[in-house]
């Protein structure tokens, strides 16, 4: 993969690598965003529960 | 299944069927508008609009491509395997443009019956293969 021809993609480097970049950015965002939101929600619910029980 | 649920299921299926039929009729009515381009036979038959821009699609006839001048003007024939139309275009052609390739051109017919294009798009086919395979496939056909 250190072959410069591989990264050049026969002159289509911009189109190919932008496609892959955008694809994985969207996929990763759709995966990480709900996990972060859930962690956040769990934290808030825990704080609320502690306040109610004490 | 409880009767109320079966009722809901039947209602949903009937609504979907009705909707499907309505959409099918609508698409049928707008069929011509949904066509992205006219074929060369359409143009010869006079179905394409005169004095207005439209898109023309077809195969670039092998051996028909010529560059009459020193500028970027190219002239070629398009065919849908039955009728041919001559196209003139000035500008840079897309990477995939070559003889035997399907293309879609946008422009209008002039007085000579030549299609003067302002834009040429290449339509690639659905076949994908390595160059070596393509060359072995082509050989037997060539005389």
């Amino acid at each position, binding site marked *: 993969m250190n072959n410069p021809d591989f990264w050049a993609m026969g002159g289509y480097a911009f189109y190919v690598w932008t496609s*892959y970049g*955008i694809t994985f950015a969207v996929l990763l965002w759709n995966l990480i965003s*709900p996990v972060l939101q859930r962690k956040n929600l769990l934290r808030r619910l825990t704080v609320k529960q502690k306040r109610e029980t004490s | 299944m409880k009767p109320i649920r079966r009722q809901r299921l039947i209602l949903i299926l009937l609504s979907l069927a009705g909707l499907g039929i309505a959409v099918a009729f609508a698409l049928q009515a707008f069929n011509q508008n949904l*066509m992205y381009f006219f074929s060369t036979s359409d143009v010869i038959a006079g179905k394409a609009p005169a004095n207005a821009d439209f898109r023309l699609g077809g195969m670039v006839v092998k051996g028909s491509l010529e560059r009459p001048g020193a500028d970027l003007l190219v002239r070629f024939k398009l065919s849908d395997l039955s009728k041919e139309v001559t196209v003139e275009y000035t500008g840079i052609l897309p990477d*995939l443009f070559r003889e035997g390739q399907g293309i879609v051109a946008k422009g209008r017919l002039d007085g000579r019956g030549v299609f003067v294009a302002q834009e040429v798009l290449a*339509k690639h086919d*659905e076949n994908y*293969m390595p160059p070596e395979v393509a060359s072995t496939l082509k050989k037997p056909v060539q005389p």
Partner: protein
Amino acid sequence: MAFFPASWTRFFHQTASPPYFYALASKLSPWLGGICLALLAAGLYGGLYLAPPDYQQGDSYRIIYVHVPAAWMSLFVYVLMAVMGGIALIWRMKLAEVMLISSAPIGAGFTFIALVTGSLWGKPMWGAWWVWDARLTSELILLFLYLGVISLYGAIEDKRNAARAVSILALVGVVNIPIIHYSVEWWNTLHQGPTVTKLDKPSIHISMLTPLLLMALAFKFYYALAVLQNAKLELLRRESGAQWVKNLLGAKT
């Protein structure tokens, strides 16, 4: 009328109960993620490195390995959403509502990817970023349907009512799916016809087809993983007052 054997119904009800489903989703996630990553690695290596360039399009055709799986998934996820909508309307099943709304952002993501990578492929090959042919236009409508589902659900305060409205929208929109699929056969389009799903001889060389199928499978596993993360979040939001959530919080502290 007994539609399913009693044992199936029991299994169904158990799996569909929020605490059981939440725990199941947590247990499955690492496996789904692992399989997805392995398939992605194999598919990317095969598609970007091992597969030869195309005889006409050179290396630009490698966009196919993200474009086509994303486009397939955009249709597949929408059909799943419509099925969930049907189940939610007929059986009033909460989990179906949750799975429907959890699928929407992921499906929208796939649709967006299919449109953008298609554009990046169209520019060098066709000579245009975008054309209003039947295939591209119907896929754009699909993106609007997904966005419609997301915003309609967000706009209605009561989530049970919101889920019913969204179920109907998902079902109505399903008529667009066959239109997208057959658009290249029904009308003249700039987009080419189907490669893999056509019935006669496959028109893609095996060395190029294998990575494509690996990537498609990887995207399926990705969807399963992502939809479970969204479903866990949605279940917590909806059931934040329920006892099982309190137990869950208690177990953590």
